[in-house]
């Protein structure tokens, strides 16, 4: 049983190279069959996303040529020159290949550690390989285990637990201040991608409604329609601010549109209920001195970025633990695969039955004592013949069926029912 993984990722190749090698989903079945046609390759799966293209294969024997063969295959199938992409490719064998696929599935190798898309992408690559018959028992076991490990790492470590984009960080902070966002209202002043995104996230997380204000009334109407909110006049923003719990500001105004005194007034009108101000504008719209007021929390774009950076650092720390978990799981998988290898199982089965045969003959030797050598030979032949006939169907089934996706379960079952030591 030999594993080999070859490919390139955002860590080794720029997007111009990656896009040349990317496999359209419709081509995957053809590609997989072509990969299976390579000498020694018995199982294969191809993973192609915007950040990586990899092929993981199981080969019967490994003479060291599998890696380059797979690399060449990737290039040729995509009609590229192997010599050009060769330097971007990496090759992992045996344990390293398993570790790599575990890391990839758990998003430890992703651009943003902890991202959730990659697992779905690996699952879909698995489904396609399975559907077109490119998966055998071994890779089936490897990939299904990788999903479990990914889930384990995501739940047991903090790699996916905190916000790593500015708009999500804003939502996270709002939740830390208000608890649930239900019933909370938003006032959006100005316009802009980031503020729109933050507003959308807040609404998705349960915020009740949104007012939109803009110097240009038509723009306010437009935005309000997209967000299913209400447009309000720009000169009344302070009054509306008093009714809102979250304020997002991103106008192009050259100076402050909300002074500290304005903020104090809003607080008083709100009877000091807390208010969260997000100032994404540069130059800033809200006087930073306002943050000194009680029950008011003002975050500008740098502050939000700081929160994101702190969270990213946290993710990196957690990633270490994820790596440890991946390593442990690779060990477990390898020992399990070793026990489920077909050939040792057949050997063990034969050995067990032969043991029984010899033992039974030995027990009966006293009663067989008065047989002629010819008769004793006949008894040996009978017992051997019985053992062979009993073994024949299980062994041939093991040899053929074990190659199929559920094959390893068959091997496991045989080991269990014949009580072969694990």
């Amino acid at each position, binding site marked *: 049983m030999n594993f080999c993984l070859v490919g390139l990722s955002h860590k080794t190749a720029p997007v111009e190279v990656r896009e040349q090698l990317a496999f359209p989903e419709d081509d995957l079945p053809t590609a997989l069959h072509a990969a299976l046609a390579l000498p020694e390759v018995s199982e294969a799966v191809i993973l192609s996303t915007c950040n990586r293209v990899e092929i993981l294969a199981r080969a019967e024997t490994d003479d060291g040529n599998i890696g380059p063969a797979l690399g060449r295959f990737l290039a040729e199938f995509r009609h590229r020159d192997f010599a050009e992409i060769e330097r971007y490719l990496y090759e992992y064998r045996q344990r390293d290949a398993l570790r790599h696929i575990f890391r990839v599935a758990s998003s430890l190798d992703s651009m943003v550690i902890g991202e959730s898309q990659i697992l779905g992408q690996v699952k879909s690559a698995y489904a396609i390989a399975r559907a077109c018959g490119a998966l055998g028992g071994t890779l089936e076991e490897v990939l299904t285990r990788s999903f479990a490990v990914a889930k384990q790492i995501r739940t047991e470590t903090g790699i996916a637990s905190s916000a790593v984009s500015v708009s999500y960080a804003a939502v996270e902070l709002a939740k*830390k201040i208000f*608890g649930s966002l239900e019933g909370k209202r938003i006032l959006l002043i100005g316009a802009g991608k980031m503020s729109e995104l933050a507003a959308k996230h807040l609404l998705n997380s349960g915020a009740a409604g949104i007012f939109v204000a803009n110097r240009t009334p038509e723009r306010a109407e437009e935005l309000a329609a997209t967000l299913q909110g209400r447009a309000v006049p720009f000169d009344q923003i302070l009054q509306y601010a008093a009714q809102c719990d979250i304020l997002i500001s991103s106008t192009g105004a050259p100076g402050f549109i909300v002074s500290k005194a304005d903020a104090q007034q809003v607080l008083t009108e709100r009877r000091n209920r807390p208010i969260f101000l997000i100032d994404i504008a540069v130059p800033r719209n809200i006087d930073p001195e306002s943050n000194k007021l009680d*029950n008011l929390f003002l975050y500008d774009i740098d502050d939000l970025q700081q*929160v994101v950076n702190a969270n990213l650092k946290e993710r990196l720390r957690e990633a270490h633990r994820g790596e440890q978990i991946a390593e442990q799981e690779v060990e477990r998988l390898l020992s399990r695969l070793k026990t489920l290898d077909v050939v040792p199982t057949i050997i063990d089965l034969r050995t067990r039955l032969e043991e029984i045969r010899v033992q039974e003959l030995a027990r009966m030797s006293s009663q067989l004592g008065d047989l002629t050598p010819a008769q004793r030979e006949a008894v040996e032949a009978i017992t051997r013949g019985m053992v062979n006939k009993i073994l024949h169907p299980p062994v041939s089934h093991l040899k053929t069926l074990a190659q199929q996706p559920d094959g390893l379960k068959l091997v496991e079952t045989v080991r269990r029912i014949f009580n072969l030591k694990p």
Partner: protein
Amino acid sequence: MQLLWLRVALALYSLGLLHSILTVVGRKQRVFRVALGATALGAVFHLVALVEGGLATQHFPVTTLQEATSLAAFLLAGSFLLVYWRYRFHSISVFVFPLMFVLTFASALDQGETYAGLPLLRTAWLYVHVSLIILGYTALFLTFVAGVMYLIQERELKSKKPRAFYHRLPPLEAIDDLAYKSLSIGFPFITLGIISGGLWASSVWGSAWPLDPKIALSFITWLIYLSLVFARWSVGWRGRKAAYFAIAGFVAMLVTWGTNTGLHSFVSP
């Protein structure tokens, strides 16, 4: 038997103490589920101990310092479980578990003398007054804890450099909600407790009772909480200012509790 149940409860509460220590020292919440289960189980044993004690001495168990301490610890355990059920605050346990343990430990040390024999104490006023005060103190302790948590969390949010605590403390509004609710339970209880105490005292000690140190201090405590309640209601004081007052009130409570001279002392008169 009663002492045995109390000691079993103490042993279970010690798991809570362990959790608090580990959580403060380490970075993650450890053994919380175990500590929570142990506390709930311990509270059951504690209740059994209280009921048995009460039945054995034929009165509601508040006549001695030891009994009152035990009751206070039990109410603390009960109110923590209530708060957890309602709010699911894990972090509040770091404050509550150690105090529960200490109080139970103190009350499980030995039986102490029962003063029910004294004519002074053989009245229903005793049960009413002490129970009300203990209930009030327990609720106001939670207000104090909420105040401290609020100050920590608010500082984290204002400083914009979230550190370890930020992630583990509950949302600000939820903390303030707990402070508000526990205040609105605690304040009426201590008010009634002081009134009942006053009525009782004037019937026993004559008109000089308000000058007794402990009683005078309890008035001051009560005034602090009164101003807190009033400020919340009228001008919407909340958050940081309310937290400061809750802390001041708790300190006053401790001073009141600790003052043992004059007429109203816990030691034998």
